[in-house]
């Protein structure tokens, strides 16, 4: 194995989990003050995440989809530095898949990011022989539903 190949393997082994989020803004409900950009940059600056890709999707009332590159947004402000580092991981076919979750008439931001905070643990797990077989997110709403179900069951038992 060449040193370049060894570097690539080492780099892959130390890569943190990559996630994506689609944040939808229903028609007429967006209120962009710069707060989201500020918090995103804070996560990047703290080394918590590395932003891999960003797209803005618009879904018209007839269901057609428009994908906008971050570089095509007028005033990027502090996001300018971030835009220069994007890896453009998402392919054109991903746009349709992601937009399937959107309601007609809405706008959504798609963010793909590496969880740098998780990379050392993930690498240690791999070195220990472990492999990721499942992961996911528990929505706060699901926790609320669980608690409410517990409370309802307790009330019935009283």
């Amino acid at each position: 194995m060449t040193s370049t190949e060894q570097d690539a393997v080492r780099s892959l082994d130390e890569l943190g989990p990559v996630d994506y989020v689609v944040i939808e803004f229903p028609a007429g409900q967006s209120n962009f003050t710069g707060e989201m950009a500020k918090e995103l940059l804070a996560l990047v600056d703290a080394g918590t995440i590395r932003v891999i890709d960003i797209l803005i999707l618009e879904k018209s009332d007839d269901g057609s989809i428009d994908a906008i590159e971050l570089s095509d947004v007028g005033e990027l402000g502090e996001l300018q530095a971030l835009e220069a580092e994007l890896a453009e991981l998402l392919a054109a076919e991903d746009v349709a898949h992601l937009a399937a979750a959107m309601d007609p008439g809405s706008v959504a931001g798609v963010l793909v990011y590496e969880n740098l905070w998780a990379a050392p643990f993930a690498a240690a797990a791999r070195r220990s022989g472990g492999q990721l077989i499942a992961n996911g997110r528990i929505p706060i709403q699901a926790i609320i539903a669980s608690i409410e179900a517990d409370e309802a069951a307790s009330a019935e038992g009283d």
Partner: protein
Amino acid sequence: MPVRPARVGRVGVIGAPVAKTVVVAKAVSPGPSPVAKTAVVAAAVTPGRGVRRRI
């Protein structure tokens, strides 16, 4: 507005159409105020919640 040429013709990474998260409606349903719910959730994810689950 088209995506950049670099995105076209590549194999995607998402794999299949994404479904909207279905539990969102729960968060806006009638019930305790968001503040009260926050306190309840915080208690639920705090160690020593109470009954140990049995699988």
